[in-house]
Every structure is written in C-alpha cells, then in structure tokens.
C-alpha cells in the first residue's frame, strides 16, 4: 500500500527532515472528503489558513455536515496555537513593569483565572497562563476525550476560553499597537477570531472591543473616546474601583465563573 504510494510518486503530505522552511506543508490541497485521519478537521483548517490566511470566510466555512461543536473546538485550538506567536512577540515588550495588570481599555482589570483564587497577574503572565490553561483544557481527557464528537457540556466551556483569549488581542491592540499591527497584518488572526466569535455567538458584540474593519467598526468611535494613554490608565482604573461601573468587582465576578 505504501509501496504503491511511493512508486506512483503520489506526493506524501509529509515534512521530511531537511525540508526548507518555504516547503513546509507544501503539498497539494486535498478536499475535506478525502481526508481520512482522525485529525482531518485540524488538517482542513490548517490547509485553509495556508491557502490564504486573509480569506476569513473560506477558513470559517465549515464543510458540509460538519458537527458544529467539533468545528468550533478545532478552530479554537488553532487560535490558541497561533496566539503562541503573538505571545512570543509580546514577551519582548510587555514586561511586568510596564503592564502590571491585564487591561485593555481602562474599563476592566482582568483577573487571571488560572489560579485557585483569581488574581491580578501582570499582562504577560495573564497571557501565558491563559494560553497554558486553554491548552490543558482543550486537551483534557475529561472534557475533550475525542476530537470526533464532543459533549454538549464541554462545548459550553469553549465560551469562557474564547472570552479570555480575546483579552490577549485587546491588550495587544490597546497597549502594544505596533506589535499588534505587524502581527495582524501578517496573520489576520484577530479579524478571524472576531468573525468566529460573532458567528458562533461566543462573545457578545459589545465585548469585542478591538475594531476590525468591516466587522465591528462601529465600535471604533466609542472606544476611541474611552481609550486613554497607557501610563495614566492603571491609576485611573484603581481610582475608578468604587465608581458606579465598578470595573474591578465586575471583572472579578466575570472571571470567577471559570
């Protein structure tokens, strides 16, 4: 069987040792029907991204008769995977000294849910912990024992993962704009994530505070009014602790539901 493959020179979808970076996963596309491995959905999504990472609609368009839960799950895995790249970029610049709290606008301080008692981790720790926690959850044998069919109760977990990892985008956008712009221009990841979250109702539109052209641009104007410089921001949020919107408290509640 494998003999046949080799002899007939069927291109194997395989990165052999010594492959050049430009040849990585450089094999002919395959239709989703022909993918027969256990991980065909991941394969399909990654193939779509390789094809054109800016073609969000194509990437998010599920094949026929695709189980929606699994589709959402695999996409979320892919988001977490690609966010590792953004994290690498942030690690250089987003230091505990400059970003001592996970914030986007001054409205919220996000508490890190990776700990037994959610706490105010510096932004970079929040980012790392959230991604680590998400990777563990998405690989958990308890909640996601199979990548072919997923329990309804486990699907419900995806929403909170989405909410948390979105804060990485929003932090990058509001505090490390050059990094965000460079990364977004290359990967279109935030755009894809925003469309994804809206399409599957994983995050309320009001909470999607990173303006994406053509998706939630109307928010831009509102946000621009609220956005304030990074330096004054943390002081403000502390002062605002008791003010009617009561950001800290609400954020705590929102987080501790995890």
């Amino acid at each position: 069987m494998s003999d046949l493959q080799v002899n007939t020179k069927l291109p194997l979808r395989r990165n052999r040792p010594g492959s050049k970076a430009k040849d990585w996963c450089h094999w002919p596309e395959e239709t989703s029907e022909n993918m027969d491995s256990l991980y065909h959905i991941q394969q399909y999504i990654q193939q779509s991204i390789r094809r054109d990472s800016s073609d969000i609609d194509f990437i998010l368009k599920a094949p026929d008769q695709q189980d929606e839960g699994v589709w959402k799950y695999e996409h979320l895995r892919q988001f977490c995977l690609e966010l590792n790249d953004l994290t690498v970029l942030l690690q250089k610049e987003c230091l505990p000294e400059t970003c001592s709290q996970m914030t986007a606008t001054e409205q919220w301080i996000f508490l890190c849910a990776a700990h037994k008692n959610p706490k105010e981790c510096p932004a970079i720790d929040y980012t790392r912990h959230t991604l680590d926690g998400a990777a563990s959850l998405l690989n958990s044998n308890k909640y996601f024992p199979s990548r072919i069919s997923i329990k309804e109760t486990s699907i419900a977990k995806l929403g909170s993962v989405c909410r948390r990892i979105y804060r990485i985008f929003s932090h990058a956008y509001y505090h490390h704009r050059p990094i965000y712009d460079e990364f977004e221009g290359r990967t279109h990841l935030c755009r894809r994530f925003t469309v994804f979250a809206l399409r599957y109702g994983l995050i309320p539109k009001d909470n999607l505070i990173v303006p994406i052209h053509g998706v939630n641009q109307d928010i831009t104007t509102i946000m621009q009014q609220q956005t304030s410089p990074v330096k004054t921001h943390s002081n403000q949020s502390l002062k605002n602790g008791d003010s009617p919107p009561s950001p800290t408290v609400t954020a705590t509640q929102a987080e501790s539901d995890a």
Partner: protein
Amino acid sequence: MDGSETQISYQTDSQAAASAMANVDAQRPLYTVPGILHFLQHEWTRFEIERQQWETERAEFQARIAFLQGERQGQENLKNALVRRIKMLEYALKQERLKFNKLKYGSENAPVEDHKSTSNDAPHYDDDENKDGANLGYGDNSVSFKQGRQLLRQYLKEIGYVDTIIDIRSTAVKKLLGIKSETNFNASNNNNNNNNNNISLNGDIKPSNESKRIIPNIVKNATSDLSKSVLASLVFLKEDQPDEDSSDDDIDSSRIMIKSNNGNTTNHNSGLDTLNDLDGEEVALHEFDFLSGESAASSNVNQMKPNENNSADWDVDQSRLNRLKEEYKRERYGKQHQHHTSNSSSIRNNLFDNGNDDTSSDPRAFSTDEQINRGMVDTIMFRNSKNFMGDNAMDGLDELARVTVLNDNEPQDDTTATDSSDFRKTWNVKYVLRSHLDGIHCVTFHPVESVVITGSEDRTLKLWNLEKAAVLRKSASTTQDLEPIYTFRRHTGPVLCVAMNPSGEQFYSGGLDSIISVWNIPNSDVDPYDAYDSNVLCKVLEGHTDAVWQLAISGQKLLSCSSDGSVRLWDSNLSQSLQSTFTNDGIPLSIDWIMQDTNQFVATYDSLKTMIFDAETGKVVTQLANDNSTADANYRVNRVISHPSQPIIITAHDDKKIRYFDSNSGRMIHSMVAHLETVTALAIDPQQTCLLSGSHDRSIRLWNFETKNCIQEFTAHQKKDDESIHDVAFHLSKPYMASVGADSIAKIYA
C-alpha cells in the same frame, strides 16, 4: 433562580393588568387593584410553594429509585457470591463424605465396596454439577450407598449418637423441604455429622470451620437480602426438588453440619486422619475455585438453580439459623485470630503435601480464594450487627471487588517478574502527555530527573515532571494524564529538534524559524502558573538561514544541521555564537556525534551520502557504503545515530529499512526491513541492549540489539496527514521511554 425571573416578568405583567383593570374598576367596585394584585401574588406564591413541594418530592423519589437500584445491584452481586460459597461447601461436603466412607470401609469392612463407591462417586459429582439434579449417578450405585450408610449409622449408634436424633432432624428437614422420608437421607446425614464432628473437634483444623462459619452469615444474608422476586421464582423450583436428590442432600447435610458442629463440641471421635480430611477440603476448594471461575464467566443457569433452591431453603429455616448465627458469632470472636494464622499455613502445607496432579492447583489461586473468604466473613460479620442490608451488601461487595482486582493484577505481576529476570522488560504506556496543540516533533529526557521536554509544531516546548504527576494523582487507572509544568515560547514556527545538555541544566531547541534557543531548565517543582521568568530563555543562536532540523550534543559541543545546507558546531560556552561550518553537497538531514571519539560526527545528506567528519579539521574521514547502487530516492536517511560504545552507526531510511554500519570501515553490517513505512526515529537504550525505532506506520518497535529481533511493538500514535511518529527517546538513568507523534500526543512508557 427560576422564581426570580418569574417574579420580574410577573411584575411587568401585573402593571399591564393593572392599567387594563382601571376601566373595569368603575363597573365592578368589588375588585380593587390592590385586591387583585394581592390575590395574584397570593396565588403565585401558592403555586410556587406547591411547585417546590413537587420538586422536593420528585428529588426524593429519584433518590429512592437510585437507592433501590443500587440495592438491587448489590443483592444480585451478593447472590452470585453466595452461589460460589454454597457450591464450594457442597463439594467440600461430598469430598469429606467420600473420605469418610473410604476410611470406614477401609478399616472395618469390604474394601471392594469402598473402592466402588469412591470411584463412582467422584465422576458422578461432576454429573450433578453439570446436569443439575439429573439423578443418574446416584441411581446406579444406590445399593452400595445404602449399605454404606447403614454401616455408618451403626457406627454412630456405637459411639452414642442416638438414632432418634438423626431421625428427628431429617424429618424436620424433609418437612421443610416437602420431601418424603427416605432412609438414604438419614444415612447421609449421619455421614456428615461424623465427618464434621471430627473436623470441628480437632483444634488445628480450621479451614472447615472457617467455611462453616460463613454459612450462618450467608444464610442470614441470603434470607434477609435476597429480594422477593428471587424467592417467588423459587417456589416453582421447589416443586422439582424431589427429583433433585443430590442438591437436597447437600442442603441437608450442610445444615446439619452447622448444627452438629455447634452442638456436639464434646463429642469425641478419633481414628481419622486429619491431614486426609484437609486434603479433601483442599481439593474441594480448589475444584470450586475453578468451577466458580467458569460459572462467573458464563453465568451458568444450571449452577444458579440449585443455589436459588438453597437460599429458599435457608429462608424457611431462618429462625433456627439466626440462633445458630448468634452462637457462631460468639464463638468466632474468640477464635478469629487463631483461625486466620493457622488457616493459610495449614492449607498451603496441605496443598503441597497433596501432590495434587490437578493442573489448576496453584497456591496463588487458592490464597486469593481464601482472601475472599476472609473478606466475606469479616465484612458480613461486622455489618450484620447493623442489620442494614443495603450497606451490608455493598460493603461486602466492595471487599469482593477489591479482591477481584488484586486477582486480576497478579498474573501481570508474574509475567513482568519473569520477564525482567530474562532481561526483557515489558514496556507499558504509563503516561499520556496531552497539552500540545499540534504535532510533536521531538522529545528528550532529563539525564537524571523524571523530566521530559517535548517540542511541537504549535511553536512551544513543554516541560513535564513525571514524578509530580504521580504524587498529585494516584489514580488506579493504568495511564495517567498530566499537565506540563512549563511552556517554553520563543520559536515563531514549528519546533523541530531538541537536545539536552548532559549537565541537565540547559537544553537547546531548533525550529523552522532557523533559530536555536538555549534554555535554562526551570526547577522541576516549578508551578506552571508562576510569573514569567525571562531568564529561562538563556539566549538565541542565530546563524542558520533555514530550518534547523537536528541538534546533537556531546560533552559541551553542540552540533546543528539545517536545511540551509550547513552543519554548524557551536562554541561550548556559546558566547561566541559560531565556531565552524561544515558544508557538503546537499542538505544535511541528520547528524550525530560518534560516541567513542567525540571529535568525529556522522552526517547524512539528501544526496544519499552518509559520511563521518572530523570536527577539528572539518575533513571527511569515512564515507559509509551505499548499498543502493541505483540511487533510489527512498534510500534517503531520516535519522542517523551512533552506538554509544561500539563503532556502529545505525540509520533509519525512507525505504522502511534500518541499516547498521561499521563506523571504522564504513561497511554495512546489517540491513533489515523494520517497518511498514518510512522509519523516522531511532534511539538506543542506556544498557545498549535494544534499539527503539519509530515510523510513520504509526508503530514504534523495540529490537534486540544483538539478535536484531523485534521484542515489542506498539501502535503508538495516530496519523495526521501522512505523518505519525516523529521521535523516540530513552531516559539515561531511569526505565522510561518516550514516543511523540503528529497526533499532538507524547507517550511515556515504563
């Protein structure tokens, strides 16, 4: 929670209603708005209360259902356990009766008859077991039996066992069982009485006592625990009982056995060989053990029937037996300790004395059975006092379940023990490491600690502490999930290779992003959610201009090969990033240091050449012979490793083969088709006795290094695209081995 929502909606409704009512008010002064509101509120509250009540009731019923179901399950299991017990006792009795017959005849009377009866009896036992009540066997030799029983009766008279007692007892039994009186019965009862007396009187012989002591408890349980449905079904079965001579017989005898054992403690009966008796018991228990295994497996209906009969019979006799039970309990508390110690030793002794040619007889099986025995006795004894059947049953079952688990494990332990004595360890998956989001390309162990590092296409490397997991979750399951204790992020593309510094303080990783990262290994107790420590990333070695595909380290000398066509040697203190570059025609695919001479390394190229370089001079020392004259592209080597102590180089090829070369001469020593697909990974265990290989055919295989035979094979990883296993590794000092694959999973074997 529901209520509050309802309330809110109600309030808005009521406001609307109120405004509507304003018009009506004028015409009907009796209805005031507050009055209506009050009424509505009142009604709503009433409904709410009722709803709560219903909810509570429902919850109660659900709990009740769950409880009853659990109870039923428990009783079912207990019933099966009892079947085993009763079968065992039946057989033991038969054997003892047989022995007794033999002895009696042997010492007093016609040896011919004796021979006949014994030889006939044994096979017929089996008949009874299998055919359940088909009375063929007893019919054949009933004459000799009658004679024997008469003799026994006479003997009993002699020793002062009055006939009337026996008669009274047997008639009582028969009344209960609804059987016409029959002389044979009396005789058999006599038999049993004597036999048991002998045993019970002898202080050393405990097994029979033990088993007997179970009876009252079993009886107690059977009577109180077995559900009515079972009993109802027994009514029908009872009607057939006159035919089931043998089983009735047994019931009789066992009941009387209890009685006699209890009541006649002053009775003296000498001249019996105690060892012999024990042998009988021994064989009986054994046979039983064997049978019960079968019956449990096939849930033999035949075997169930007599048991059900038994329980019904016990039920009838409850009051009496309860009394007996009390007596036994008292007796037991006095003897308990003594029993346990003397039991096992005497049984084992007998087992060996026996010289039993029964192949199924092994001490392990037996002792397990005994454990069950004890477990049963203990739990039932203690729980009985509570008289709470659900609890009782379940606890007893717990005990049983535990024993069964032990039993299951034992054969495994045995095999591993024997295997290790052969220097042939059987590997099993111990941990499944899931946390990577995409295929894992490389794995390495810490040289000393139980720590693993994996590198994945998801751009991260993860650090796993196997020991931490073992402490955190001591689950009974064979494979455990554990979380990584640290995630290394620096690569912006798939991580392709990793190498551990022999000091265990640092490791290196190379990726598609053409960088080599140097990492300080965090403490193995690090909390995965600690603050980010930027010192973990020691430095980044830049120099390669394309994917770094493999790293090799020897001492402090780090070697890397990249698809940019170069092999680079990095300075030992890594301060000056680049020491020397080796280029040849083609792209280096894999490299390794020649272990016994650390100034040489082997590199294999996509031009199908494999050669040994001198790292100092940069010159080619030897070129390995290529047995593939046609230059078939499938000859391509995916991994090359050098034997740590012998001048042997091993290569893993695309053409499914593993080849062995002599590194001095460059000649090929051996070639073998090792897998069904491209061989991707190789590793040699620290004892240098076996070779581990991985392939895209999803399997990893262990090979005996000397004989080149496959020792063990695992289907380890699933395929993603056409890739499966990317890397395998051995721990240098601990019995761990690892495999990683495109399915994002790493497996640790131990």
